[in-house]
C-alpha cells in the first residue's frame, strides 16, 4: 500500500500538493506529535543517562506489538501495555529507578527472543505477507497510518508532552542531584518510575512512526544535540523538541519526494546530520564535563 502511495507521489508534481495526500497529512499529524514527545522525553533520558533503558523499552515495544498480533488483537494494545509494564518493572528493579546495563541487556535479549517467537506464531497463523509485519514493527510505517491511528497517536503524543512539562521542574532537580532533592522532600523514586512510564508510552508511540529499532535515535539524537547547544534546562528542552520535529518534517518530505527512500531512513539521516552539526559547531563548553 505504501509503495503504491509512493509511486503515486513520485509521479505527482512535488512539494506543493504534498499535503493534499491523506497519507501525508496523517504522517505529518502523527509524526509531529510523536517527534515532539520524543524530543522532550529524550532530553531527560539523556540528562539522566537512561539511553540504554530507552533502548530496552524499544525492544519491549517490538515484542509487545508482535505478541498482540500473534494473539489477534490490535498491535497498539500490545505496544502500550508491554512498554508501560516493563517501564514500571525496570523502575522497581533498578537501583533507584536507574538501571544496571547488564540486567537490561539480559532482559531485552529475552524479550526480543519472545518477539521472534510471536513473529513465527503470527506468520504461521496468517500465512500471508511473511516478513512485512516484522519489518513494519521494527522500522515503522509512518506512511501507512490511517486517519484514526494518526489521530490517536497525535492525542497520546500531546498528552506525553504535557505530562513531561508538568513534571519538568522537580524532574530536573531530581536528575541533577538526587540526594539533595530527596532531602528537600521530593519523591525522587516515584518521579523516576513515573518518568520511565512516560518513556515507555513514548517508545510505544514512536514505534508507530519510526519503528522499535530506530526510536532510540529520535529520542537520543535531538536531545544530545540540544545538550551540546545549550546548558540551560528549559532552552534545552525546547531545542530538543524543536530539532526532533524538524527532523521528522524534513525526513517525511524527503521520502515523499524520493520514493526509494524509506521514511524511517530519511528521518534518522536528518537526526544524525543534525547531531553531527551540533557537534561541529564550536559552542558551549562551559559545562563541567567530568
Amino acid at each position, binding site marked *: 500500500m505504501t509503495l503504491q502511495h509512493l509511486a503515486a507521489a513520485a509521479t505527482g508534481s512535488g512539494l506543493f500538493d504534498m499535503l493534499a495526500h491523506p497519507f501525508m497529512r496523517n504522517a505529518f499529524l502523527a509524526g509531529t506529535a510523536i517527534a515532539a514527545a520524543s524530543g522532550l522525553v529524550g532530553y531527560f533520558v539523556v540528562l539522566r543517562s537512561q539511553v540504554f533503558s530507552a533502548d530496552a523499552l524499544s*525492544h519491549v515495544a517490538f515484542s509487545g506489538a508482535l505478541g498482540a498480533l500473534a494473539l489477534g488483537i490490535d498491535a497498539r494494545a500490545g505496544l502500550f501495555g508491554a512498554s508501560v509494564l516493563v517501564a514500571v518493572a525496570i523502575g522497581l528493579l533498578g537501583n533507584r529507578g536507574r538501571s544496571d546495563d547488564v540486567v537490561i*541487556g539480559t532482559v531485552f*535479549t529475552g524479550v526480543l527472543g519472545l518477539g521472534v517467537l510471536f513473529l513465527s506464531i503470527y506468520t504461521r497463523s496468517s500465512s500471508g505477507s511473511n*516478513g512485512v509485519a*516484522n519489518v513494519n514493527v521494527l522500522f515503522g510505517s509512518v506512511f501507512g497510518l490511517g486517519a484514526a491511528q494518526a489521530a490517536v497517536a497525535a492525542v497520546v503524543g500531546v498528552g506525553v508532552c504535557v505530562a513531561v512539562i508538568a513534571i519538568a521542574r522537580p524532574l530536573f532537580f531530581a536528575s541533577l542531584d538526587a540526594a539533595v532533592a530527596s532531602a528537600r522532600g521530593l519523591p525522587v523514586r516515584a518521579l523516576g518510575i513515573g518518568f520511565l512510564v512516560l518513556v515507555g508510552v513514548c517508545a510505544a508511540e514512536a514505534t508507530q512512526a519510526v519503528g522499535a529499532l530506530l526510536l532510540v535515535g529520535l529520542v537520543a539524537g535531538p536531545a544530545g544535540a540540544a545538550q551540546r547547544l545549550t546548558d540551560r534546562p528549559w532552552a534545552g528542552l525546547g531545542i530538543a523538541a524543536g530539532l526532533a520535529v524538524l527532523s521528522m518534517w524534513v525526513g517525511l518530505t524527503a521520502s515523499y519526494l524520493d520514493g526509494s527512500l524509506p521514511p524511517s531512513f530519511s528521518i534518522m539521516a536528518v537526526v544524525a546530520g543534525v547531531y553531527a552539526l551540533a557537534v561541529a559547531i564550536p559552542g558551549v563548553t562551559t559545562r563541567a564535563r567530568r
Partner: protein
Amino acid sequence: MTMAGVDLTWNIARDVNNLFAYHFMVNAFRAGTAVAVVAAVVGWFMVLREETFAGHTLSVVGFPGAAGAVWLGLSASLGFFAFCVTAALFIAALPRRTRRGFSEESAVIGTLQAFALACGLLFASLYAGFLNGVTALLFGNFLGITNGQVATLVITAAVCVVVVALVYRPLVFASVDPDVATARGIRARALSVLFLVVLGVAVAAAAQITGALLVFALLVVPAAAAQAVTARPAASLALAVGFGLAIAWIGLAIAYYSPYPVGFWISAVALAIYSAARLFARSPGRRPVPAGSRVA
C-alpha cells in the same frame, strides 16, 4: 512435524544421533561452538569493562553491513566483519571521559546505532524482495551454514581467543582500575582500542548465528551469569565459556526438534541460565558476591 522432519523420541541416544544426521546440523554445531566460546570470553571482558552499550551498538551496526553486502552481491559474513570492526575503531576514537553512563556519549552511540539500522533498512529496501532476509539477519539462522563459513568462524574465534589470552593479565588490570594500571606502565588506551576491535570481531562472528539483535544471548548472558556465581576472575571466565556452550548447544538442539526459530530458543535458554545463576547466588549459605565485582 518439525523443521527437519524428524520427531523427538524418548530414546535419547537415537535423538542425539538424529541431531547429527544432517550435514547442515553438524555445521551449525561446529559454528555454534566456535562462536559461543569467543563470545563468552570476549563478553566476559566486556561486562567487566562496562562496555555493554558499546557491544550492543557493534551488534546493531553489523546489520547494515550484512544488508549492504547482500545488496552489493557480496557475502553477508564479509559485511558483518567489515562494519563491526570499522564501528569498533570509531567507538575507540570517541573520548571516554567517565567509566560508565556518560550521558552525552551514550546519546552519540544511541544515535549512531539508530542511523546504522536505518541504513540497513535502506539497503534491504533497495535490494528488492529482501524482507524475509531482514528477519534472518536480525534474528539468526542456523540452516545452510557452509563449510567455508565454519572455517572462517573457527579461525576468527581462535585468533580472538589467542589475542585475549596474550593480554589477559594487563587487560584485567586495566579493566578493573585503568588509572592505577596506567601509573604502573600499562598502556590502557592501546589495550582499550585493541579490546574494542576484538569485541567487534567477536560480535560479527556471533551475529552470524544468533542474528544481529540476539548477540547478547551469547555475549552478555554467560558472563553476567558467571559473575553472579563467583567473583574470582579465572573461575568465572571458565564458567562463562561453559554457560555459553550450554546456551548454544541446547538452543540449537531444541530448535532442531521444534517449529520455532533458533533465536527464540537460544535467548530462552540464556535467560533460564541467567535466572538460575542469580537464584543460586542468592541462596542461603553462600557468601554474597562482593559489591562492585558483579558489574565491576
